[in-house]
């Protein structure tokens, strides 16, 4: 039997678990359509007021906002959120009594949920196209976008993991969670493209790790980044991922040690 078997199983179980909440699924699709529509209205109004940056025309902006919204459906899934609950209620002890790697367990659990929601996005996307026009780029661009999105996903997982693992020290992480989430969304280009940040500030935010989550794949998607700039952009994402993954492993070691030494 394969060493990764348990983790494949975790992902499948998470998928099945998500599927049990049918009502939630339908309300999610509904609220998504509403948000897509509202985004179109807001950006159309803003562009009417000449608030637009020169390099992003309105149709690209609406595409950006819509794709960002769809991405957030996946990226806002946080498999590591369970850590907080487990540490506070002591369930972490039972997990540690299993012959598994817990970070990998949380990753696969989150991944299973992700796959479920990714499947859901398809009908949402089709419906969304009825409300707004979304640009669909050429296959090479879509391919580069997909690769970039995977790296964004990985960086996002590490950020979430690091945020939640703080629970081992403080138990209450909600405030940290909120701050980091907000900063990540704003500075990562989920709310507005980073081109909206003026001058030097724009340069800074483009080089922050948050940009690796939303901004890089989105800039590839709307064609703001030409093919010649892809390798460097994706390499930067990869670098952030390696850095955060290493840091996550280090922090996990400490967290695990903290439980076994002090009893959580």
């Amino acid at each position, binding site marked *: *039997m394969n060493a990764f*078997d*348990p983790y*494949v*199983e*975790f992902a499948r*179980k998470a998928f*099945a*678990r998500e599927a*049990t909440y049918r009502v939630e699924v339908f309300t999610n699709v509904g609220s998504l359509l509403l948000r897509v529509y509202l985004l179109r209205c807001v950006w159309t109004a803003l562009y009417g007021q000449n608030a637009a940056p020169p390099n992003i025309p309105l149709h690209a902006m609406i595409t950006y906002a819509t794709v960002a919204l769809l991405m957030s459906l996946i990226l806002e899934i946080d498999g590591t959120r369970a850590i907080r609950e487990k540490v506070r209620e*002591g*369930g972490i*002890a*039972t997990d*540690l*009594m*299993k*012959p*598994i790697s817990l970070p990998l367990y949380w990753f696969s659990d989150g991944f299973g949920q992700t796959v479920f929601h990714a499947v859901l996005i398809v009908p949402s996307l089709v419906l969304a196209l009825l409300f707004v026009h979304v640009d669909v780029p050429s296959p090479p661009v879509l391919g580069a976008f997909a690769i970039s999105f995977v790296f964004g996903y990985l960086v996002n997982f590490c950020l979430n993991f690091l945020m939640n693992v703080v629970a081992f020290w403080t138990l209450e992480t909600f405030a940290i969670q909120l701050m980091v989430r907000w900063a990540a969304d704003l500075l990562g280009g989920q709310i507005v493209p980073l081109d909206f940040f003026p001058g030097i500030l724009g340069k800074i935010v483009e080089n922050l790790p948050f940009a690796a989550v939303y901004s890089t794949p989105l800039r590839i998607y709307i064609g703001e980044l030409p093919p010649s700039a892809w390798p460097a952009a994706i390499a930067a994402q990869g670098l952030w991922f390696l850095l955060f993954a290493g840091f996550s492993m280090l922090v996990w070691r400490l967290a695990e040690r903290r*439980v*076994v*030494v*002090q*009893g959580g």
Partner: protein
Amino acid sequence: MPIIETRDLRKVFRAIKRTPGALGALRTLFSREYVERAAVESVTMQLEEGELVGYIGPNGAGKSTTIKMLTGILVPTSGEVRVAGLVPYLERKRNARNIGVVFGQRSQLYWDLPLIESFELLRAIYSIPRDRYQKNLADFTELLEMSDFMNTPVRQLSLGQRMRGDFAAAMLHDPRIVFLDEPTIGLDVVAKEAIRTFIARVNSERGTTFILTTHDLADVERLCRRIVLIDKGRVIYDGAIEHIKEQYGTHRTLVVELCEDYPSFAVEGGEFESRVGATVRVRFDRSKISADQLIRRVTEAYCVDDVSIEEPELESIIRRIYVEGYTDPGAASAPQPTPVS
């Protein structure tokens, strides 16, 4: 070779010192003053494979801290610990394959999924070979009568059903040692009995070693021959239940049903315990006065409808030990462990 072995096992917790009051709370935020508390002072014990031992003690005695050290999720402050030849905290994951755990108050089943899905997941976690898994699942389904709710989501199960599911979950991977923490808490008598029967059968048929931690001494009395009694982090008794019962068993209680209402009740050689309605309870020492003699004295002085004699239950003995401490009438110094083979 013993399957579980600890020597002078000790665990000290360090906690931030808290000062009372609002100002104190503020100071706690910044101060780094610590207080140390030994949850387990010194525990030395040996368990042979296939034993079913009751590990009991009052709240805060150090039971669950010991169990956590045996399962490898706590590092001892000092002392030695070996479980099936492994040092648990050094090899947590390998140790995890040898052990199973059932917590009465915490389920390890997947809340939203049908019971069978949790079992499937455990098959993957422990890499249980297919045929072995199928056989165990079939055995446990029959023994625990789980077929009716195998496809029901765990959140819809009754506590009794959930516990049965948890037992199967803890044992699908054929653990050599199973830790049970309050496994019958909150269950009705029928469900309790079903669980006890299951434990006894698995212990005798599969030779699984069990450590049973519980406050329900009826569980212990029904299942275990040996108990390890712990208080304030130390082992105060380790030996056969029979032995402790003999030591403390010189006391009996005479229950008298009076036919008239007497204003007071007293009898020489007996110690008045309680009186509810016409029922009077008198404790006496069998080595000082025979039951026969005591009954005769009572019937001479009072009109009696009925008499009966109660033997002390393990519960009342343990209660006395908690209050008075343990002293072995046979031994002059510290209690000698009396291992059961």
